[in-house]
């Protein structure tokens, strides 16, 4: 049994790119994506005992979306801090290596459009179109009914369509 229990280093090695992609799509920037991945690996470390052999991607993306939504809720409780963050970000924004890499990998307008979605919609869309989970799995990950998943995905895509138009 112990052989099938992964280590967090193993998760980072084997699924690092996948994990980073999900984190980047959710957060929309490299700084937050890196913080999110670190948080996910902390949770992976703690939660490895509860991991049951199955879809590693499903398990990881559930942890990632939950960590992301937890952080979003935490930030919303601290509006002053958030405003401070935004000012800081504006001040340090400039062309850098990371942004260059990102823009080569995904057209800016698509990632920018994703960022306009409400966090709950974005989580559902990312789990569906980036991770490739079924609606049932997404409902399970987000702890909402399948009907909610269905409407969040469609409304999310509809909003993206308008932004991208």
């Amino acid at each position, binding site marked *: 049994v112990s052989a099938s229990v992964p280590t967090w280093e193993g998760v980072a090695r084997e699924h690092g790119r996948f994990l*980073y992609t999900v984190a980047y799509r959710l957060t929309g920037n490299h700084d937050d994506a890196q913080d999110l991945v670190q948080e996910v690996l902390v949770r992976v470390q703690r939660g490895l005992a509860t991991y049951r052999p199955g879809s590693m991607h499903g398990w990881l993306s559930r942890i990632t979306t939950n960590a992301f939504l937890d952080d979003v809720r935490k930030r919303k409780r601290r509006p002053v801090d958030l405003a401070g963050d935004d000012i800081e970000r504006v001040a340090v924004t400039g062309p*850098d290596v990371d942004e260059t890499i990102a823009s080569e990998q995904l057209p800016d307008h698509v990632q920018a459009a994703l960022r306009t979605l409400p966090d709950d919609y974005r989580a559902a869309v990312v789990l569906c179109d980036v991770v490739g989970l079924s609606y049932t799995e997404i409902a399970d990950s987000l702890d909402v009914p399948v009907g909610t998943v269905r409407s969040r995905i469609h409304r999310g895509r509809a909003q993206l369509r308008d932004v991208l138009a």
Partner: protein
Amino acid sequence: VTEHVGELASAHLDGELSPDEAAAFDAHVAECAECRAEVVATATVRDTLRAAPAIDPPFGFYERLVRRPPSRPPRPWWTAAAPVVAVAAVWIAVLGFAVDPGRPAVTPPVDQIRATLGTPDLTPAPGFSLHKVDPTASPLPDSVLHLPRHETFKTKAGDVLVVFGDSPKNWLAVLTEPGDADWARLRGGLRSPVAGVPGSPWQSTAPGAMPAIVYQEGDVVVTVTGTVPADQVVQAARDLHSGAQPSVVDRLRDACDSVLDAFSLR
């Protein structure tokens, strides 16, 4: 005509409708141009998202995590950026006379620091200390690129800055910092392999920026910069890395140790 089914377009495309729902959907869409358009538009967005490639983390991101496990709270970016800020501050504080204020900074904080400092005033930025150390006390090279060693400074615990040069217009600075390079925070440059320099060093590329190269040698981050042309900065890095044993970087590392001892920082 039955009720519009546009809301179900995503579920239909994702194969998430029940057989009954799917049959009703198909029947309606066959008759309704509006819902057909909804399906087409939704499919376009869906395809765009699904075709998007995976994102690579910044160079060395996971490697750094493995060396510094994530149970340790992540360092806020401003402390992670501190070495870069410190380097910049030192350049400005010590060598400010040689830095053309019209040139773009290699990292964004440089502009802020420069603005705080003001051009003619060479007072170090708040929070940065600078101690000149006795150059004879450490086994440092006497010259790099035929530029004689000029001054040696301790910038903060463990960092050593050595300035080689013969005039304010002609100098080369070598900074060694114990620890791992935080590549993701370096701005205005790119990483790529350079023959004779370890790893995949970072070089400044912003137009008009000071030529600079940053590389990791063992447990020390080495930054080389100066008023000399960029290719000579790279050559200096090559000279520092290769050649006689112990290498210059080894000697700088020893210098770090002796400096720490000298300032009773251990």
